[in-house]
């Protein structure tokens, strides 16, 4: 295998795995507030999240920024918890504004720091930093695209095929995300 394909695969597996549960959960909660007919806005929010985590993944691995891993492990479930709460607020449910993009982008920055620990291990002490960054990031995005597509498909089925309200979907998944992330926050409490 070429190093390119190998890094691509590692990035992909880093998202599509049981250990990446927190990132997947964040995506599910972030998407929950949208109606499936506003899928373009939804893609916008996911793209904003992607931009955020790509920035910190790159910077974190370059050691431009260094944040305590234990703190990041706590902040990641906190982003899920706050997003779930936002989904219940009146302002949060108005998905036409910029608010949701900002939330996705800023929380993306935090998730990227989580990836960067892994990435740093992969490239440490090597000349291949830039060479590996593109395929690894691309692998992460491909994995994320798969997750987003599957979730969106289920949202459409629920709303269109079963003719149910997107509000119910939001309450169900924001509630689940809130519950799980609360336990995760307590588990990773660093203070």
């Amino acid at each position: 295998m070429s190093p390119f394909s190998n890094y691509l695969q590692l990035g992909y597996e880093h998202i599509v795995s049981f250990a990446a549960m927190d990132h997947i959960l964040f995506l599910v909660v972030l998407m929950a507030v949208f109606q499936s007919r506003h899928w373009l806005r939804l893609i916008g929010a996911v793209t904003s999240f992607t931009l955020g985590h790509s920035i910190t993944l790159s910077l974190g691995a370059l050691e431009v920024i260094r944040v305590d891993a234990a703190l990041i492990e706590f902040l990641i479930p906190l982003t899920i918890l706050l997003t779930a709460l936002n989904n219940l607020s009146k302002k949060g449910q108005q998905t036409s504004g910029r608010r949701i993009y900002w939330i996705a982008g800023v929380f993306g920055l935090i998730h990227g720091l989580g990836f960067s620990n892994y990435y740093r291990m992969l490239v440490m002490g090597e000349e291949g930093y830039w060479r590996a960054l593109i395929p690894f990031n691309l692998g992460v995005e491909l994995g994320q695209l798969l997750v987003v597509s599957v979730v969106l498909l289920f949202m459409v089925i629920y709303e269109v095929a079963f003719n149910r309200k997107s509000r119910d979907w939001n309450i169900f998944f924001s509630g689940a995300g809130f519950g799980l992330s609360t336990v995760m926050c307590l588990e990773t409490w660093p203070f």
Partner: protein
Amino acid sequence: MKIFLYPLLFLAFIRHDFHVSITEIHWNEGELQVTVRSFTDDLDWALEEQFGTNPRLGTEQEHPKAMLWMERYLNQSLLLEGDGKVLKGEYLGMESEYGICFCFLRFSLEAKPSQLSVENRLLFELFDDQRNVIHYRIGLDEQAETLHRGEEKTLFTTTK
């Protein structure tokens, strides 16, 4: 009721931690230079499991036998064959910084191997999600493979 709760809690308890090591193999004038990098705490744990004492690698309290244990552990976990012949590795030492351990080895060879088989079972006994990435560089040719439990060996072929 509890039955429904367990899967939820199980999900929540999973940390986003990961288990990975990188092995770089370079051909350089009659020898294969090998660097293995891995998380120090994982290696501490592996050596403790096997030799009964935590070696505290890279710290001031490092166990006097740590070097010997590390050498034995690497010898049994990392096996190289050049053109079908088992290669004998020479352990050169290790460094640990920021929680990551770098181990250095050398395998002497008379000629550039056209086929190199690498078996790397490092930490497979501890973690079922352990990934061991192998990078092989010979001249301008570079190849990479990722090994995991169940797929513990790979073969690199170089033309010429």
